[in-house]
């Protein structure tokens, strides 16, 4: 056994533990926590070692079953996918601490089913960032989506209906992506991404190529909830079990954005995607609209978790817009924002999970005076809110800075205005909650529910990952420089 297979073990260990959890977890729930945490901890260490190796030795290429690409399935670990592996494993590990606790409360007796899906989802996400094969990507995208449908449907109330909506939208998205790949296969006769990137520019079939690109990108936009196609997301993410939300919300949309970056950079090549300037401009306008609409819709919500889901819609607009600015700063900002947004969303959803665990609801009314009851949780919330708004030492500031620079470089003032406006709306959103939570009463005075002021902090299992995530927000923010120099700059294609 040697280290060449390490990145595959990062994927395989959660997958095998999913089977073991399903089998042993139904006998005794004592088995679940050690297996979930153990396998994810292994993945974290594995990913970090791979990241170090990739930075030192350059891109790793691996063939499954030793069938040579372009015929066999190739796995490619370049700096960006290594970064995504570390991100996924760290977020999944931190989220699983909190999930274990909230699933114990919300789904007693069904924990083994929940964590089987949970671990398969994580394995699927690892597969998505590893693969260098366009069809393999489709299969893994469906694995992650189907497990997510299952996780969301385990929620209470109308969760099953929301999950069904997501199934319909998600399947349409997957079909679109598959059609795009079908066109590509007809055109090039290959499914290997590097091979497609080599053959496609030599073909001189502009209409067919454009159709293929359009189908695949629209498919991915449905999956990532890009603004006009976002309608499935708020219901699905806010009605999912709390434990599912803490992991799905930070990772699913962000990994899909990564897939779009991967498809544009490594498969369709930027030159072909950005041939028609008006298309790229149209997408930037659409993402400016996404940012504004997402933020405004968030303003109208009466529930913290629902509000956060609309903020996710706005954040997807940030990242898509940054990529379609088609310049180095915009792309840097987008990739950086994938990392930062995953951590910020994780932080805020961990807070939601902690508050729901203690008081069962995160409606704005029930948040009155929550600072007094859960001071550490709310301190972390404030930090996460600052990151979302983009206050300097936190990581949210740096990616927004690059995105704004990219917008100015590309002359897209509508994008810059949307970014600034969204930051201001975020400030209003979060300070409204912080005020409510700190000073403790709604101004209209209609709600005189009896809410205790006794200190009742979340359990250690939920608090420690939350505090760690909040610290990470600042650590990642301060290490933006090395992150860009060692990882992201290597991904910027020539000519940007």
């Amino acid at each position, binding site marked *: 056994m040697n280290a060449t297979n390490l990145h595959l073990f990062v994927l*395989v260990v959660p*997958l095998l533990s999913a089977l073991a959890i399903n089998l042993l977890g139904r006998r005794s729930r004592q088995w679940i926590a050690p297996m979930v945490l153990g396998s994810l901890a292994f993945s974290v260490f594995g990913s970090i070692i791979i990241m170090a190796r990739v930075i030192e030795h350059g891109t790793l290429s*691996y063939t499954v*079953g030793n069938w040579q690409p372009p015929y066999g399935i190739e796995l490619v670990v370049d700096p960006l996918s290594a970064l995504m592996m570390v991100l996924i494993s760290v977020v999944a590990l931190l989220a699983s601490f909190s999930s274990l606790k909230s699933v114990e409360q919300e789904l007693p007796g069904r924990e083994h089913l929940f964590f089987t899906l949970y671990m398969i989802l994580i394995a699927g996400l690892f597969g998505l960032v590893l693969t260098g094969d366009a069809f393999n990507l489709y299969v893994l995208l469906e694995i992650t989506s189907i497990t997510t449908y299952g996780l969301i449907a385990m929620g209470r109330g109308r969760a099953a209906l929301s999950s069904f909506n997501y199934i319909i939208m998600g399947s349409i998205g997957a079909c679109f992506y598959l059609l795009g790949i079908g066109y590509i296969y007809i055109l090039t006769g290959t499914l290997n991404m590097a091979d497609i990137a080599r053959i496609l520019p030599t073909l001189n079939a502009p209409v067919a190529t454009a159709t293929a690109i359009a189908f695949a990108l629209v498919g991915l936009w449905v999956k990532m909830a890009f603004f006009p196609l976002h309608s499935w997301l708020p219901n699905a993410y806010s009605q999912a079990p709390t434990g599912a939300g803490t992991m799905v919300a930070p990772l699913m949309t962000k990994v899909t954005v990564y897939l779009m970056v991967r498809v544009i950079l490594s498969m369709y090549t930027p030159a072909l995607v950005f041939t028609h300037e008006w298309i790229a401009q149209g997408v930037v306008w659409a993402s400016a609209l996404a940012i504004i609409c997402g933020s405004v819709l968030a303003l109208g919500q009466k529930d913290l978790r629902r509000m956060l889901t609309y903020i996710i819609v706005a954040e997807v607009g940030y990242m898509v817009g940054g990529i379609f600015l088609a310049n180095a700063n915009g792309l840097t900002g987008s990739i950086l924002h994938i990392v930062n947004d995953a951590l910020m969303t994780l932080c805020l959803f961990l807070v939601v999970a902690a508050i729901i665990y203690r008081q069962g609801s995160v409606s704005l009314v029930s948040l009155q005076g929550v600072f007094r009851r859960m001071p550490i949780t709310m301190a972390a919330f404030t930090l996460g809110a600052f990151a979302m708004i983009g206050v300097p030492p936190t990581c949210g500031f740096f990616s927004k800075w690059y995105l704004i620079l990219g917008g100015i470089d590309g002359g897209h003032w509508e994008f810059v205005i949307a970014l600034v406006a969204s930051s201001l709306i975020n400030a209003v959103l979060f300070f409204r909650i912080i005020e409510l939570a700190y000073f403790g009463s709604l101004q209209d005075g209609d709600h005189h529910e009896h809410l205790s002021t006794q200190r009742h902090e979340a359990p250690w299992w939920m608090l420690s990952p939350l505090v760690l995530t909040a610290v990470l927000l600042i650590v990642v923010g301060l290490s933006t420089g090395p992150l860009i120099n060692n990882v992201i700059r290597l991904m910027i294609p020539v000519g940007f």
Partner: protein
Amino acid sequence: MRDIHEHTAGEDLIIKTSVRLMVPFIQVFGLYVIVHGHYSPGGGFQGGVILGASFILLALAFGMKTSQEYMTVGVNAVLNNLGPAIFIGVGVLCTLFGGLFLDYSALDKLIPLGPVEWRSFGIFLIEIGVGVAVMSIMVLLYWNLSSGGSMDEGL
């Protein structure tokens, strides 16, 4: 009331007798399809579906309880996980013997059959894993859907 119950339970001599006659042949055919999957038309998925269908046929003709006598819920749960575990396990075994994931020729060090022969035999092991998984999941899906998730009463 009794009529409906008898009808849903499939109390019919012709159905029961023909199912009793057909099930062994269906299962042998399912095994045949799995075993021949790696070098002729067939495969683990198709064979697994046929095997699963034989248990569903039993449930349709004799009731769910009867099918659960032949494959208990516990056995089904084990098979559910055993199938994927065989698939992944073979892959991991290949890496343990110095090859890449799912590179069956590396298993030559375990049992010296020759690397080319192992390429053929390795995919056969994978097909068995797929077959076991598909069979048990098919049956589990049917049990769950026909009993509304309770897995005790139903068609």
